């Protein structure tokens, strides 16, 4: 090696070390990013689940109270629809993303009727098929009516409690 070549060779060697280091840093950064991205995705998923669960519980409570204030003759299986932001939807006003279904079950006793409501909140999947609906929250509640329901002649034997 002559004296004219030495600085150039040292420069090239330094540059190649720097480039090699840069490649290692990029590879390591890519690996770390892949792991950290998964952590961020998991946090986002958990946050979405928490939001859906909270809104589903609110929707179930709304449906339960909506059913409980009805007179026993008006009680039937009802569905309350919500859009993707959990805003209530009127029927046919747009594609729903969630719905709360309140299903009553009448149990006629000696003096009155105990109505058990099962409220199930579900998320509607992309395919809009029944099998693609994810249950989010289920709430059970009861309401007692003094009188026997449902009655075929539409009469009421006793006044409702309260």
């Amino acid at each position, binding site marked *: 090696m002559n004296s004219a070549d030495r600085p150039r060779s040292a420069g090239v060697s*330094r540059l190649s*070390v*720097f480039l090699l*280091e*840069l490649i290692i*840093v990029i590879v*390591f*950064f890519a690996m*770390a*990013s892949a792991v*950290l991205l998964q*952590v*961020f995705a*998991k*946090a*986002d998923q*958990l*946050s979405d*689940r*928490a939001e859906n*669960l*909270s809104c*589903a*519980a609110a929707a*179930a*409570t709304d449906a*339960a109270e909506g059913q409980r204030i009805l007179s026993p003759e008006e009680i039937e299986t009802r569905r309350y629809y919500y859009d993707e932001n959990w805003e209530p939807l009127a029927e046919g006003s747009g594609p729903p993303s969630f719905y709360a279904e309140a299903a009553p079950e009448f149990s006629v*006793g*000696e*003096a*009155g009727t*105990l109505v*058990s409501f099962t409220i199930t909140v579900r998320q509607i999947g992309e395919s809009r098929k029944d099998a693609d609906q994810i249950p989010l*929250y289920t*709430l*059970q*509640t*009861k*309401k*007692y009516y*003094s009188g026997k329901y449902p009655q075929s002649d539409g009469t009421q034997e006793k*006044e409702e*409690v*309260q």
Partner: protein
Amino acid sequence: MNRKLNMSFGTGAPVILLVFVVLCLTVLASLSLMTALSDFRLTEKSTDYTAAYYAADSAAEAWLAEVDAGLSRGTLPESVTASFPVTDRQALQVTISVTDGRLRLLEEKLTAVEVWDYDEHLPQFSDVIVE
């Protein structure tokens, strides 16, 4: 006097930068995961409480049905007040009245199961508060 200004990264600088960036991202990712997890746990607690409240309310309605059935047979209820536990510390208290064999729901309220004992946690400090 014709000096060239040499501005370049030395060997090892990208590694230091990488360590710093990865460390920052790790802290941020951990914090966001912890926040999301605590949010989810809080939501679960809240929904569990809602379910517990409605379970107590259902028990109260079943009790009303039982009392009304008893009244139709001419049996007066043992008590006009009943309590249904919601949590370890809360209960749903229902009060009824029976007039002329008819049942009337007077009150339905959440009450504390235990009365707070104010003497249990006396101030432990000896500071004198000057008015």
